[in-house]
């Protein structure tokens, strides 16, 4: 690894962290505001930042509520219960957030970056190398996603078990069985996409989603696998334990489930990881089914419309457009998850597991078999 | 490339640790986990051999070991569950009914 590679990696990591943490902070506000607008209310609008030495208050539709929440969680008393196991208690929040952040390492958030063309003064230093906009372009992309989300399960279970609280323990048990069940469904739905694109490398999967099918449809995964997309989204929402599937932290039954005994920033870390997970699930969905950073009719040089009309763009604009496209799609997905959360009623616990094992899993397997047979027929 | 013999040595030591764990610990669950450690040590050795001989068979064998480990845990855990339900204890020294 030489200096330019290292610099690019640092830039990517900084970008990914900034994006994820911003999503985590903003989504707390978006969730409240969107819920308010959905139910004819106004929503959070009280927090403000006063410019020092003036009376100018920046309210900005209450955008600073996320900041206020963070500050409150930081400054609150960190109340430590008589934990059953101090080590596991301290480890819980970390195991919950770190794998979620790491998952984003394999998600491509843009096309190919040519820093030499972007900054001509540095062209010599970079020596004409190009970099895919992905922190770790590893060929085992999807597998890594599932590997890391397996670690989050252990985080939730450790947190619940070590709190020495029966509500936490129940929440942890529920978290364990729910996450394992739905991760299985998620893996099986993704296999259809893997079959179609013939790779598990997320970067390649996104590249193969550029272009069009049948002349007008964008060649996105959702066109090939609409059924798998729905199943994946369901399983994804279940994976980040949000409302139709929020049994592990059901407020009305279990106080707040496996992190009942956590307070101050430790609880904040759990909340933050949950909000980041919304964004990560959105990013995965976008990568697998929504064509990632691709816009229809766009390639590395600009737009080429079906009529043969072309709009060439410079490399910088293409990069910016790809980044923005990805962020916009992820934001739409987050918004959709929030819509689901404020619309659907919750499952009962037995219904939740029955839904996973008796409904989603057979459907996912059927989808996989149909896809495999269709591909086999096509190739034969 | 790291030293092959060092990796092999690590694998041996881990295997020995797992073996010692199975022998000296009293808790049934801990014994199971020590067996997992032994399997892990074997996997490390296999990967090292596979790298050393530049063949895939070692890595393939690793996958078969994964499956064996999953099957093993799927059977062993219900047995431990049943034992602990009967004796309400995980202490293997209490399981002496077969001693005759």
């Amino acid at each position, binding site marked *: 690894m030489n200096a330019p590679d290292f610099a690019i990696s640092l830039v990517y990591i900084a970008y990914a962290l900034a994006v994820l943490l911003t999503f985590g902070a903003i989504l707390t506000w978006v969730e409240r505001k*969107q819920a*308010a*607008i*959905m*139910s*004819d*209310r*106004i929503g959070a*609008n009280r927090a403000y930042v006063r410019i020092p030495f003036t009376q100018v208050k920046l309210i900005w539709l209450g955008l600073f509520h996320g900041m206020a929440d963070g500050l409150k969680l930081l400054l609150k008393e960190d109340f430590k219960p008589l934990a059953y196991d101090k080590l596991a208690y301290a480890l819980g929040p970390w195991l919950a957030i770190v794998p979620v952040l790491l998952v984003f390492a394999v998600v491509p958030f843009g096309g190919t970056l040519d820093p030499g063309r972007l900054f001509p003064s540095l062209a010599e230093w970079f020596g004409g190398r190009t970099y895919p906009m992905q922190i770790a372009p590893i060929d085992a992309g999807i597998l890594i996603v599932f590997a890391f989300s397996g670690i989050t399960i252990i985080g939730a279970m450790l947190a619940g078990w070590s709190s020495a609280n029966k509500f936490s323990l129940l929440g942890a048990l529920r978290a364990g069985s729910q996450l394992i069940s739905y991760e299985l469904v998620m893996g099986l739905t993704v296999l259809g996409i893997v079959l179609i694109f013939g790779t598990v490398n997320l970067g390649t999967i996104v590249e193969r989603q550029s272009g069009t099918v049948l002349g007008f449809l964008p060649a996105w995964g959702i066109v090939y696998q609409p059924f798998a997309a729905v199943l994946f989204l369901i399983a994804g929402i279940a994976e980040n334990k949000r409302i139709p599937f929020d049994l592990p932290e059901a407020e009305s039954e279990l106080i707040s489930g496996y992190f009942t005994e956590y307070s101050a920033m430790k609880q904040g870390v759990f909340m933050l990881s949950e909000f980041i997970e919304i964004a990560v699930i959105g990013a995965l969905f976008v990568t697998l089914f929504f064509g990632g950073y691709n816009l229809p009719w766009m390639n590395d040089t600009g737009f080429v419309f079906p009529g043969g009309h072309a709009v060439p763009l410079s490399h910088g604009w293409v990069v910016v457009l790809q980044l923005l496209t990805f962020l916009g799609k992820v934001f739409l997905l987050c918004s959709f998850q929030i*819509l*689901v959360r*404020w*619309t*659907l009623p919750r499952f009962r616990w037995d219904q939740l597991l029955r839904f996973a094992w008796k409904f989603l899993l057979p459907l996912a397997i059927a989808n996989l078999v149909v896809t495999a047979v269709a591909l086999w027929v096509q190739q034969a | 490339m790291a030293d092959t013999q060092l990796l092999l040595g690590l694998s041996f030591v881990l295997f020995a640790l797992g073996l010692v764990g199975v022998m000296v610990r009293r808790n049934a669950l801990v014994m199971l986990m020590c067996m997992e450690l032994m399997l892990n040590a074997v996997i490390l050795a296999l990967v090292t051999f596979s790298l050393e001989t530049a063949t895939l068979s070692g890595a393939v064998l690793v996958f078969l070991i994964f499956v064996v480990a999953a099957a093993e845990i799927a059977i062993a855990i219900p047995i431990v569950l049943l034992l602990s339900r009967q004796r309400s204890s995980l202490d293997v020294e209490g399981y002496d009914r077969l001693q005759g």
Partner: protein
Amino acid sequence: MTTPRKPHVRRQYWNEPTMGWWERSYLLEVARGLAITGGVFLRNMGKWMTGRKGALTAYYPEEIRADYAAGNRGKHILTQRPDGRPQCVACNMCATVCPAQVIEIDAAFDPDDPAHPKYPSRFEIDYSRCVFCGFCVEACPEDAIRMVKETPDLPGFDRDRMWLGKEELLNWQPHADVAKPYPVRPAAEPGRSPDA
């Protein structure tokens, strides 16, 4: 050994929802629910984007509800004499009748006004406890306290702000209805000492 468990009989309710198999399968209904909430969201969002208000609720302190009842009386005022002094003679009848005991009056002596030598040096109403029953208006012999349609600007971070004093109560927007002409009476005969 174990008592046989009673067979579970599901209770029938009078308002049991009737669902066809399609609704029972829950698939289309999920999509329909999402469409409804999403539609509401998009409509309200469109209103916000175009500068209209997309909510039924009010910004509470900044925005006064438009739909207060016609008979709502939300604020007390003290009527004034033509010279601007309060008409109140500090008889304490409103404070006595007040069910929530929110009115506090300190009486004082004013030798310069022989007709009404007793006046309130302090007249305060604690709006955090006021029940807006209007008994004080009924009890007042001098027509010195009235209630008007405005609502006091109460919300704040401090409970002390909810005490309105004499100045605030006297500082009303004079309507024709409230500014009652005070009949000018001749001054009291000299020699009669005013009661303290």
